[in-house]
């Protein structure tokens, strides 16, 4: 199937076999829930005509109603006419009259009026915005969200270009006492700006597209990891990149691993634990695969330590860098693959676990907010961050206590990523390790690291990015630990860039402290 890259090939065969869908047979029949090549060009709200529901599709459906194709077609409006694999609430209890399908492209604007109406202009979002704090030209989330949304109700109003200065840290969501969907509004406005107003041949667009599609570059680079690591950081090449592409020469490109996580997973023979009662599907994301496979390995070992069967479904980019650059079409294309494969894993009884807090944020919040794909609500509801999930389901403290801690004391300067903050996870690492012998972890405060994914990778934003990060660097230097810790790969880049510290992921420390 064309959407699987070679790297995913080992999983692709399994998918096709399990779904038995007609998407691969080339018969041209639209098959809800089983995207096929070319579906990207189809209307996003996919409504099959009655009678087009292929019966073969019932094979992977535990819900008996799905065997009845005509019955499913009745509720076609929002989920492609297919009951969810796992019985997610929105899909099974769907009331077609009460449910208003939302999608960004090409089905028109999201209906965000309720969100706009909920704004009572307290400006809490503006005071929480790390960009507004350093950038005189950025009017802040209150304008970018509810105010701009109102302004563009009329066709003759363009989206203000300043939307491209929003770094999508989503702190405004967390700050809003009225639950205005600010980041959703920003994502929509940014998507429209890029689609309708941005010059597609401009250096900025091309640069942003490349940054947003990190997975593509990383996938290529990992074919020749050593060469790529050298070439990407080769002085004259960096000078040229800044001049031609607007990628700041100050930044070091991350090293590519000589063995990707997926290569390791395959070489090890996949899961070492089988347990139909405790299954998780690991969404490793791009960075743990291409750059820091040790994080992915730690995830696998820790979860297997707790008796989980780990699945590693085929997957693409979570979309986070694409949302931040308004590349919603790209994000959607990747989302289709992710949702398709994760829904299948959920059908096998798995919850979805991400080790990157931006990936988990995307699957949980941005996916259902922006895309109307079959099963996307199920994916959102079944997704958790790795440490979060263990804290909910396992006696992590007792287990850590029993393990006895580290022999040689280690101290860490921990930074909570903005996207962790929005999932209520900003304190979990510090609290998990607080009572572990031999571990000292300090929270370096609530400031944003400043890199916000691709934001700090843009030449014109580099200085602002470092200014936002200054407070964190300062607090890291003050902290006792000489090793940084965070869940977010780009925060880690920024932490390393600003302090020279080595940066670890909490899962790595969990692996060490559990002796997993």
């Amino acid at each position, binding site marked *: 199937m064309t959407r699987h890259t070679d790297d995913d090939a080992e999983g692709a065969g399994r998918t096709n076999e399990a779904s038995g869908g007609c998407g691969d047979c080339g018969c041209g029949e639209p098959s809800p829930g089983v995207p096929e090549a070319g579906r990207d060009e189809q209307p996003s709200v996919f409504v099959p005509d009655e009678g087009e529901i292929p019966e073969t599709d019932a094979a992977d459906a535990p819900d008996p109603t799905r065997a009845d194709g005509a019955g499913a077609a009745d509720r076609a409006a929002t989920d492609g006419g297919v009951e969810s694999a796992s019985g997610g609430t929105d899909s099974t209890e769907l009331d077609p009259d009460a449910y208003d399908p939302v999608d960004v492209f090409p089905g028109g604007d999201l209906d965000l009026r309720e969100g706009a109406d909920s704004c009572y202009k307290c400006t809490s979002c503006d005071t929480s915005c790390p960009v507004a704090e350093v950038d*005189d030209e950025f009017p802040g989330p209150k304008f970018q969200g509810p105010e701009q949304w109102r302004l563009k109700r009329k066709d003759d109003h363009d989206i203000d270009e300043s939307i491209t200065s929003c770094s999508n840290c989503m702190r405004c969501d967390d700050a809003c006492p009225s639950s205005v969907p600010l980041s959703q509004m920003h994502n929509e406005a940014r998507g429209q700006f890029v689609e309708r107003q941005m010059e597609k041949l401009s250096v900025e667009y091309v640069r942003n597209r490349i940054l947003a599609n990190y997975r593509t570059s990383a996938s290529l680079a990992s074919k020749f990891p050593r060469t790529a690591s050298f070439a990407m950081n080769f002085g004259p090449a960096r000078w040229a990149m800044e001049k031609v592409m607007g990628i700041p020469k100050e930044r070091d490109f991350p090293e590519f691993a000589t063995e990707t996580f997926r290569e390791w997973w395959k070489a090890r023979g996949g899961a070492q634990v089988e347990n139909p009662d405790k299954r998780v599907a690991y969404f490793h994301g791009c960075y743990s695969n291409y750059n820091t496979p040790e994080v992915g390995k730690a995830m696998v070992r820790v979860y297997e330590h707790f008796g989980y069967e780990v699945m590693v479904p085929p997957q693409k980019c979570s979309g986070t860098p694409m949302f931040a650059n308004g590349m919603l079409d790209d994000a959607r294309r990747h989302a289709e693959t992710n949702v398709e494969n994760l829904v299948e894993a959920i059908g096998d009884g798995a919850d979805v676990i991400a080790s990157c807090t931006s990936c988990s944020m995307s699957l949980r919040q941005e996916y259902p907010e922006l895309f109307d794909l079959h099963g996307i609500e199920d994916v959102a509801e079944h997704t958790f961050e790795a440490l979060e999930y263990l804290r909910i389901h396992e006696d992590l403290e007792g287990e850590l206590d029993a393990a006895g801690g580290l022999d040689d004391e280690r101290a860490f300067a921990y930074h909570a990523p903005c996207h962790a903050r929005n999932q209520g996870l900003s304190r979990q690492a510090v609290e998990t390790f607080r009572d572990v012998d031999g571990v000292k972890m300090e929270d370096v405060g609530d400031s944003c690291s400043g890199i916000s994914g691709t934001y700090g990778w843009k030449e014109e934003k580099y200085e602002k990015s470092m200014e936002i990060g200054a407070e964190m660097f300062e607090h890291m230097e003050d902290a006792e630990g000489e090793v940084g810790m965070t869940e977010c790969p780009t925060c880690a880049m920024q932490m390393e860039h600003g302090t020279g510290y080595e940066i670890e992921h909490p899962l790595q420390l969990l692996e060490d402290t559990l002796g997993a």
Partner: protein
Amino acid sequence: MAITSDVLVIGGGLSAVTAAVSAAREGADVRLVSHKASTLRQASGLIDALGYVPATEPAKPLRDGPPTAGRELDPDEWPDPEGPLADPFEGIDRLPESHPYRIVGSDALREGLALFDDLVGDAYRGSHTDRNALVPTFGGAVKPTARYPAAAEAGLASDHRPMLVVGFRSLTEYDARAFAGRLEAAGVPFDVAGAEVEFAEAFRADAKITRLAKALDHDEEIDGVPAREALAKAVAPHLHDAVDADGGVERVERVGFPAFLGDDRGGEVRDELADRLGADVFEIPMGPPSLPGLRLEDRLFDALDAEGVRFETGNPVVGVESASDGRVEAVAVDRKGRTAPYGADAFVLATGGLVGKGLDSDREGVREPVFDLHVDQPDDRYEWFVDDAFGDQPYARFGVRPDERCRPTDADGAVQYENVFAAGGVVGGADAAREKSASGVSLATGLAAGRQAATEANQ
């Protein structure tokens, strides 16, 4: 169920923090969960206790018959409130019996304030006396308050020194000359002048106060001049703007700014400005967005950390997960679509009132959404309010009705859950806006509820 604690505090404002710390100091293992970033960032940063005792009886008897709903048919009238009170403790006895202060007692207020003093250290003033201080706020009103930020100290209205108030055209919510005029009209015992100066114009017209604060914190250069120096230079020509009673020119001895004088390094910024201006410098508490509120939030959450309280922000508590024998065993926390149970031996509900969304309302009624606790209210929606906007509005006192241990009761006065306690805005009975008592109620009930919850959990 893996997420447990002795005491679970629900909320992120002043009462929640107070309850969490006071429970922790009783030896309980405490966890605090709040839906959104703390609402302290919307607070002025002033800690009021009791500024006024409003009348609870109308000036003339209320008319009989159906409510007129503002149709100007014989509208009701209410007397002005008594105050400003010199001593908040002295007014407590004159509050209605259902007032939270009457239920938890004035000692709880006293201890709550003491706990607050301990948590904020030298960042606040006012602990030397029981008496209220009079602090000018950005509308030009003077607010009786029990504690105030050190940054506001030089601005007290009881101080006789002449004052200059500085404003900026781009800060539209605040007009320095109107402010000075209103202070003068209020009869303050000092001469005051207002001046609009050129400084914030170097930034974009709607620059955020956080942007201005950051520029001052870092002393960023503005057109080649460091920000603090630039601000002092802009103000200097107005130091003789005040006019004394005889019409003579008077050099001011204190200069007030909107509250944006630095975030992390406020003291340093004020000291440098004071040095350059040869006058004391103070901040005027603002409406939201409020830097004094943000600074208070930072201090209190650092204090939570120091007290060993676990806390998380970002996910709402949406209901009771399990309960038996009149006790709640666990509440449900919504983690982006899926709920997780949070178990505890005792719970403190500190989710705020109607504005803070601890109470939910529609045309049918007013509800407490987490535990579905009883909220006392007239059946007829037209009896939720009176005609006089400044009268004794029934809705202002909506909330849960606690017993003497801060446990919410049902319509018959029976305790609803043995191990659920309430604190802050969700507690009814106070008209915080008219009384100027919101912070004090939060401290007093927070302290009491936290202690009671710890006691319950320790049993």
